[in-house]
């Protein structure tokens, strides 16, 4: 029998309690974490959606995105992908996935916004929530950007940060598709070696973002698909990162 419970949202007291727990973990990462209180009315509210969530252990963001998208579609909450109480509760419910115990018996939660989405005004970190961020991207772009979500759910990751932190980029399916064509190794299911260089070496992901921001001054990249965006990139710099068939095609057009 699967272990499932009714979906709830944390109230203000619950969010404070959860934040304290995250703070405590910073000073005592080996402490025992008891989250049984998240089902109590004192700390969370029922939303009477009839939605049940299954206890699972997610390894990758993609697994969580697929499952939660499917599960939450019936939930009628205003701005549900940005709802602080909903995503705080889900983070606590899936805490073993988003903040697992490591080999030394310790949990490293990182910054609170990874587990508790920002309140209304603190919108800059909303994409860094370990569950809501990936699911929002998946909701916008579906399977086309699954490469972006094939990484450890307990880590935000630099690859995702570079693309998700800028709304003009994160909102454009074509830009993300092109990033996948350039930097994702289909064989290893990981970013290509050197793609994430922090030194802005020619053709790397950071340079791609820089060049995009220049191209956005001239083109409406939002409406283009991935291959159309690759056509706009300088071949000399990005050609070697492109898939062979696209590179040959672009060469023949030159």
């Amino acid at each position: 029998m699967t272990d499932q419970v009714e979906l709830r949202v944390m109230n203000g007291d619950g969010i404070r309690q959860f934040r304290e727990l995250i703070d405590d973990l910073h000073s005592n990462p080996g402490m025992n974490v008891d989250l049984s209180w998240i089902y109590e009315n004192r700390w969370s509210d029922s939303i009477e959606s009839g939605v049940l969530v299954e206890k699972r252990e997610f390894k990758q963001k993609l697994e969580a995105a697929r499952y939660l998208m499917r599960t939450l579609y019936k939930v009628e909450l205003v701005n549900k992908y940005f709802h602080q109480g909903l995503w705080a509760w889900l983070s606590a419910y899936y805490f073993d996935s988003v903040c697992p115990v490591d080999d030394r018996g310790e949990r490293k939660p990182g910054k609170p916004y990874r587990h508790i989405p920002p309140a209304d005004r603190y919108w800059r970190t909303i994409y860094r929530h370990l569950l809501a961020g990936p699911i929002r991207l998946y909701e916008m772009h579906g399977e086309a950007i699954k490469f972006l979500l094939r990484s450890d759910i307990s880590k935000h990751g630099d690859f995702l940060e570079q693309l998700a932190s800028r709304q003009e980029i994160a909102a454009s399916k074509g830009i993300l598709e092109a990033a996948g064509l350039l930097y994702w190794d289909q064989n290893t299911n990981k970013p290509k070696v050197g793609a994430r260089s922090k030194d802005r070496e020619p053709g790397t992901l950071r340079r791609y973002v820089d060049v995009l921001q220049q191209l956005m001054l001239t083109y409406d990249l939002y409406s283009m698909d991935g291959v159309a965006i690759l056509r706009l990139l300088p071949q000399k710099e990005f050609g070697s990162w492109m898939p062979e068939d696209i590179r040959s095609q672009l060469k023949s057009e030159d």
Partner: protein
Amino acid sequence: MKRRMNFTGRKKIYRNQVEVHLDKTDSGELQFILDLNWDNMEVPSTAEVAIEAYVGSNVQRFDLGTLGSVEFPITKTLSEFFSDVVYFRIKLINREDGLGKLLASCSGVSAGIGGKRTSLLPVAYRDLGDLIWRINFDRDVPHLEINRQYRSDIPIADIVQGNPGFQALVFPAVLEELLTHILIINEHTEIEGDEWQSQWLFFASLLPGVKSLEELPPRPMENVSDYEVWIEDAVDSFCRRHDLKKSFEKAFGG
């Protein structure tokens, strides 16, 4: 096919050509009413109109059809926003070239509930003796103060808002002074949060080619040169992004 990175023939849509109001519907959703005066824009009526509403990492796009077919003002519902202030980007796009080149655009147009608008740098007109402008840091947020004592034939408010020569000369200096004040004098390096300092750092960190502040050593006072280089990069990028050299040439060229 030749690809030229920095060529842009796009026109600017000036703030006085756009009017946006934000309101709440009876069901609590946000809606905006946007009017665009394109009479003197020299853009064909076949240009396609796209409006992008954005707050932080959240963006919602509206493709409205051709300019000639849109009946301004338009009213649209923002189904995924919860902020009291929303920013807008307006794009007029040439689809006939098969590329989606921008014919005219503007971004950062803000609208707030009840007419509330936010500006990172409010402008105030003061008696400043022989000084043309200065930044006043003594208020809750820094203001760009402009001398209001000029001959009556000098439309100083128009110059500040729309004169490309003034903008090319003053805005980079303003940005440099603000970032120096924030990073080196105040030693404020926190990009998260709602303080004006964080908002400016966030703005600067999104400029093309500007590396993340997290890549710099901590404690600016002990690493002044690293922070000075970062500020210089941000100002350079700001000038490139807004074509300020071209603005200067346009204002003062023959």
